[in-house]
């Protein structure tokens, strides 16, 4: 801990304990060790050079050579260096870090599910198709849309698919149009997606409440506008109260309303995008529907749409045949095409459906209510110490700014780092861009009151530290294996892989390399 005088908060949630050092697997390797044992070959051996000729590999890849216990310890030790939902509150705004139920993992590993080959015959795939059909039906009901495709592998991939559909729709009317309007509060994926579909991005400035300025939008929308990409609730956690007017403004000019469903955890069971004028949207099954984030993926980003857009959905799709059985079909002449191989992240479909079945209609609604309750509770408990840039009511997340703390030279990123010392994962920092120095906090429904109170306590103590002992905060974290990293050098002189010694027979002194 820093040796500055002044107030130092009490970390009620955590006690420091040892974590083990662990070099790279390559540095632990020594020739001849094995972590595998293949079954004996029951067919004649072959000579690779005879079969492959000059295409045979003549150099060995420098992969580690380790025994099984060393591999278990290696990755277990690495795992202990991570923070995780399983350890505590992970209030990363916009990411919906909710509990990932273990039954989801269990059912996704059942033999008939985990070992199903994507090209196995339809009559041997009906179980997979039944799962796909039920998940689609549930998600259509939850969103209030008419049709859905599950293929996209993540939210950004869902956006890509949805905007391709938007383009195909306009093209079918004779003109693909030129622009996509995107509020300045949007996720970076939105403009990047619009650009990758050949659209120019038009930036829409948020109004004084952080929402869509409907009058400005009305002036902006014209016959060149393909769509508005809107996140609702917005990235400051506010529901667009004038959502239907927004839809009307767009529809009057033939433009579409695309909804980024990143924040669906605020809406499920309480309201449906299909009912408030959305034409096409994506969901993030890894956010709202509890499939694990896994250190950054895999995700799953289904795209739902109104009936008039269904002809443009990607292929293939499950359809009920005249024989009363489910079949795969690609009979969709106006489709945007195939957006990925096979059918999507099927393993994530299984997990999301398990989550929906565990909740039922009552559980889904209660989940949303608890998520919104938790965010508002945090807001109420912190609004006297952190600046609330927008007083509009919060839904599932609350966004503060570091305005009061910057007077002492402390920024949102510093408060975030100090929060680590209190045993929490930081909130999202510096986003959305419309809030300078944003602290974007999304507790989700998975936090108990006790955990929320510990978080509030930590945030309040940090606020006091900022006032009385700011250096303690700007030099945080103080309790982690490593302190702040030199990101500038990392980017200027990138080291993106380990380079071993020239010969692999050199004994590596791992102790000397440890931290």
């Amino acid at each position, binding site marked *: 801990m820093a040796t500055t005088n002044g107030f130092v908060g009490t970390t009620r949630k955590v006690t420091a304990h040892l974590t083990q050092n662990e070099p790279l697997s390559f540095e632990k390797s020594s020739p001849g060790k094995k972590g595998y044992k293949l079954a004996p070959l029951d067919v004649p051996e072959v000579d690779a050079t005879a079969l492959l000729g000059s295409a045979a590999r003549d150099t060995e890849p420098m992969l580690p050579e380790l025994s099984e216990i060393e591999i278990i310890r290696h990755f277990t030790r690495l795992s202990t260096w991570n923070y995780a939902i399983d350890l505590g509150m992970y209030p990363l705004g916009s990411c919906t870090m909710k509990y990932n139920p273990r039954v989801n993992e269990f059912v996704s590993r059942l033999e008939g599910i985990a070992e199903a080959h*994507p090209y196995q015959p339809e009559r041997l795939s009906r179980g997979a198709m039944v799962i796909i059909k039920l998940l689609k039906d549930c998600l259509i009901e939850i969103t209030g849309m008419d049709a859905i495709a599950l293929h996209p592998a993540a939210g950004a991939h869902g956006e890509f698919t949805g905007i391709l559909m938007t383009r195909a729709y306009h093209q079918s009317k004779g003109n693909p149009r030129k622009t996509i309007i995107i509020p300045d509060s949007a996720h970076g994926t939105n403009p990047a997606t619009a650009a990758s579909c050949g659209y120019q991005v038009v930036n829409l400035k948020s109004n004084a409440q952080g929402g869509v300025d409907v009058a400005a939008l009305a002036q902006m929308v014209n016959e060149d506008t393909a769509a508005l990409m809107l996140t609702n609730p917005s990235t400051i956690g506010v529901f667009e109260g004038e959502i239907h007017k927004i839809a009307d403004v767009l529809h009057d000019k033939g433009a579409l309303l695309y909804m980024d469903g990143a924040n669906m955890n605020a809406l499920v069971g309480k309201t449906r995008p299909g009912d408030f004028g959305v034409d096409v949207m994506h969901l993030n099954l890894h956010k709202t529907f509890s499939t694990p984030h896994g250190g950054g993926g895999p995700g799953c980003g289904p795209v739902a749409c109104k009936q008039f857009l269904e002809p443009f959905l990607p292929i293939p799709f499950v359809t009920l045949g005249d024989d009363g059985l489910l079949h795969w079909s690609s009979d969709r002449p106006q489709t945007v095409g195939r957006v990925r191989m096979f059918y999507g992240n099927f393993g994530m479909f299984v997990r999301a459906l398990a989550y929906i079945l565990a909740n039922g209609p009552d559980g889904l609604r209660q989940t949303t209510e608890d998520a919104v309750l938790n965010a508002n509770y945090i807001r109420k408990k912190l609004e006297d110490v952190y600046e609330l840039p927008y007083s509009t009511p919060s839904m599932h997340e609350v966004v503060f700014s570091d305005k009061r703390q910057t007077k002492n030279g402390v920024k949102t990123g510093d408060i975030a780092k100090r929060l680590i010392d209190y045993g929490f994962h930081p909130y999202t920092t510096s986003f959305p861009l419309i809030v300078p120095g944003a602290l974007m906090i999304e507790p989700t429904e998975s936090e108990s009151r006790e955990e929320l109170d510990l978080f509030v306590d930590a945030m309040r103590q940090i606020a006091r530290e900022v006032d009385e002992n700011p250096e303690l905060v700007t030099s945080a974290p103080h309790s982690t294996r490593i302190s702040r990293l030199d990101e500038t050098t990392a980017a200027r002189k990138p080291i993106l892989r380990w380079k071993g010694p020239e010969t692999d027979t050199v004994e590596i002194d791992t102790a000397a390399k440890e931290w």
Partner: protein
Amino acid sequence: MRYLPKSDAERAAMLREIGAESIDDLFSVIPEEYRLTRDLNVPRQMGESEIIDYFKAAAEKNAQAYTSFLGAGAYHHYRPVIIDSLVQRGEFLTSYTPYQAEITQGTLQAIFEFQTMICELTGMDIANASMYDGSTGAAEAVMMAVRVTGRDDVLVARTTHPEYREVMHTYAQHQGHEAHEINYAPDGRIDLAALDEAVTDQTACVLVQSPNFFGIVEDIPAIADIAHEKGALLIVSIAEAVSLGIVRPPVEADIVSIEAQSFGVALSYGGPYCGVLAAKEKYLRQMPGRLVGETKDTEGRRGFVLTLSTREQHIRREKATSNICTNQALVALMTTIFLTVYGKQGMRELALQNLAKAKYAADALGKYGKLLFAKTPRFHEFVLQTEETPSRMNARLMEKKIIGGLDLRKWYPELGNATLWCATELTTKQQIDAAAAIVAEISVASAAR
């Protein structure tokens, strides 16, 4: 609801502290006409045992205990048990993108190891932290080549996985570049003469898959010469990553796009899998996706961090190299564990077993049909042409609980009754002999006719 950690009394107390009368106060911002006042029409809340029963019943409707000779971009390899033990640790499973490096060093170091392993296997200088899958990775590789060269003509081998080609087309259609397909020669490899003729100084890249969709290993140095002569980049797409244990790495390529599902990832009816892009270092700034780099902390200790993010959407927005955000991190971790288990010797031994099994299977089945492209080097897949139609042959095999080769007529009608077979280290001699015996029945019968 068992996932929700609150009693009704606690909810009521929290509402009181907020100053709300009821939970609906917090939703009053939603215009009344759009509030849902009924239950969602989804199945009722189930007990855990019921959920398991539901999925078990579904799983039983899928193929179970069948012998399968399917490959074609999704491969059945043995998955060491410790992969699942390790990736189910909550610290890996339930953490997110390692933006906060101080408390995500575990994920970051594992990705750094992953990047290193991919470089070692492919002979490239750099590799990213993963893409969605091999098909979208290939599409992103093409877009990357278009950015690097400033050219917009793209040449793709027709022996690239048909679904990859479709995905590349979907991605390319609004990027202003066009893809043209180059057919294969009688030996099953890309037609080098046709390629030579097609490459011009407007060609951004040539993309080939190797081993290609027929299982054949392409002549990468020859293809590279043709592409590079006109200043085009060479992209090599690898759908069967295990091949890298025994097949020469495509060191002449500029970009390598891999589907790493074979490295310990369940088939799972087609996903989640793990794409990854590797490239020559000079193309670093055009690389899409996340990258982990080594650096030091304020005390000089080694640490890892997400880096070069100025290429990415959250910084560059519409000028980013890609819109990708979430990738396939946990699946990349599975592949990293797989590669650590097999290591240097194991990867070669494993690949060699695959080569041997496929050789045996091709010889066994080849007796009762025509083995196409028989003389060209291949890894563990082969094309068999039969007198009988694939559907009839496979129906007979299925009666014995064997899933035969993939019917190729949809994509390569010129090959007639052709099927694509795959054998891996898990395919036994007994299974191969059994399949060959069934294929033989009709062949013997038709010979007698």
